[in-house]
């Protein structure tokens, strides 16, 4: 029984990690209507940046902060330089961010090589918590905690603040928001930077959980896309629930059917889409 709970926690930790990644994807998709295929690569970049700082004897938390800042700055640069030219053009967005992901992945390979690396969890969290005969690694609990915190924060930002109101209005009627004197361009830059920062953050937090290797970017991207698709485009609630679902099912799948866990996740997506083509909590889209 204790193994079951430990696995459940692992599944939850993975689920929260997927939610954190999918959150960045969802906010960029929901607000700007951009499918950011470079999101997985930004995740990878965040992890590797933190890895370098930590190798330089820097504190985990400072490395985390710097990594989030740097990915946010990169987000601003990318939006200002490239993304802003392709608003409203779906195919172009896909191709552009696809191209970006190749470049960033190659830069990562160039700088950090192709060897597998490990990002170590902070010393503070490198312990375990025992309840009765059950042992829970503290770091996984921490990831679950941060995931819940992020979900709360995002919910609060969206429904209770002025920024959230502007973003919600911007999704429904961009021209009207612009006519009200709000700088939509600035909002978009901000949202893209925020999404990139979320990718960086989840990269650093995910590093100790899943390790760092070439090819992690596309794996993460596919998983988070599946999360977003199952949950329904642009729905936080959907992303949150489907991320946990995927995390838990994948973890147990890995134990019971080691070679086919990815297949199970994919099958879930197909079943969901057969029943509800717009995802579990998605709005009907044209």
């Amino acid at each position, binding site marked *: 029984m204790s193994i079951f709970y430990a696995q459940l926690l692992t599944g939850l930790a993975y689920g929260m990690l997927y939610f954190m990644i999918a959150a960045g994807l969802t906010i960029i998709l929901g607000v700007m209507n951009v499918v950011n295929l470079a999101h997985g690569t930004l995740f990878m970049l965040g992890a590797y940046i933190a890895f370098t700082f930590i190798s330089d004897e820097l504190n985990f938390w400072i490395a985390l902060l710097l990594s989030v800042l740097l990915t946010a700055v990169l987000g601003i640069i990318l939006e200002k330089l490239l993304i802003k030219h392709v608003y409203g053009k779906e195919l172009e967005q896909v191709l552009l961010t696809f191209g970006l992901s190749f470049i960033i992945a190659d830069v990562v390979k160039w700088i950090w090589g192709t060897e597998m690396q490990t990002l170590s969890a902070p010393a503070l969290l490198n312990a375990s918590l025992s309840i009765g005969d059950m042992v829970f690694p503290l770091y996984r609990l921490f990831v679950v905690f941060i995931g819940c915190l992020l979900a709360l924060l995002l919910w609060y930002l969206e429904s209770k603040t002025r920024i959230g109101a502007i973003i919600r209005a911007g999704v429904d009627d961009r021209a009207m928001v612009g006519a009200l004197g709000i700088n939509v361009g600035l909002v978009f830059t901000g949202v893209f930077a925020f999404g990139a920062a979320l990718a960086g953050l989840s990269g650093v937090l995910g590093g100790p959980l899943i390790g760092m290797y070439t090819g992690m970017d*596309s794996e993460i991207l596919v998983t988070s*896309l599946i999360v977003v*698709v199952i949950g329904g485009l642009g729905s936080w609630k959907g992303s949150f629930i489907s991320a946990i679902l995927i995390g838990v099912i994948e973890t147990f799948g890995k134990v019971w059917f080691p070679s086919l866990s990815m297949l199970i996740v994919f099958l879930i997506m197909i079943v969901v889409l057969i029943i509800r083509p*717009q995802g579990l909590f998605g709005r009907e889209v044209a």
Partner: protein
Amino acid sequence: MKKIFLYTVLLILLVLAMPLGLSDFGMNLATEIYIMAIFSMSLGLIMGYAGMVSLGHAGFFGIGAYTVAIIGQYVPNTYLLLLISVVISGLIALITGAVFIRTSKFYFLMITLAFGQLLYVLFWQLKPWTGGADGMSVSATLNLGFGEIVSPNGFYYVMGAAFIISYLLLRLFVESPAGKITKGIMENEARMSALGHNVRIYKLLAYTLSGSLAGLAGSLYSYFNVFVSPDLSGWTFSGQVMVMVIIGGVGTLLGPAVGAGVFIYLQNFMSTYTERWPMIMGALLIILVLIGKGGMIHWLRYVKDIIFLRKQIDEEATQNQVKKEEVVN
């Protein structure tokens, strides 16, 4: 129909004329280009004629390649093996497509991406059959009924012929009523639906045709390369074929084929100088998106228009000149 005839004759002449000026290495490169041209034409079909952007098209390529690699161990007949490849990839396209086309653009993109990545993982993990990450060598040999084909020249002509046949098939589909309805659906789905056309059937038809052709390209590649690995289904490869389509031009049949040629040539040329090919490919993609204006075929048309227009202007000028002279006289 006249257009089909003209283009086909031109393509046959091209395939026949190329070996005149090519070294062995060049012949190999051209053979690879023919295979990739089939692959990129298949993606170009659904992108440019049905409005479906797939990011997992390499999945079908991988299915075709692994079919020849795995089933080729038991079925030596080339015709039968190619048929099996096409049928399997077509069937998988039919089944998955029936689910995928129910979704709108964003979802379609993501689902196809996930589909390609899933096959990548499957080929990786079904180690007893596929050799896992190490890949597997292909034991089947190309034999069209007149002895084993092993020479570079033999491969060249077989792949060249396959390329022409694939082009003909796609051209016939595009010019057929079904193809025209499909294009109409891409331009205005609601209207075609209101006109009484079953939108999904036509989209599914295009997707299935495209998937089976990509499978054919994969199985030909298997014969050509005699080695297959999971990378043939990976998203990097899907991205590459999309770059080929974009370089050549979306919305034309031969555009993607031209793009494949340029891409494969560039890749070979560049890789002798630098390892950073993915970076170059990414930059190329971004530049094409931002200032590409529709790809090479469209540039060629643009140039043609300019030349044609200039001719017209010249003619008008001489006519005016003649008139003036008449008036003077």
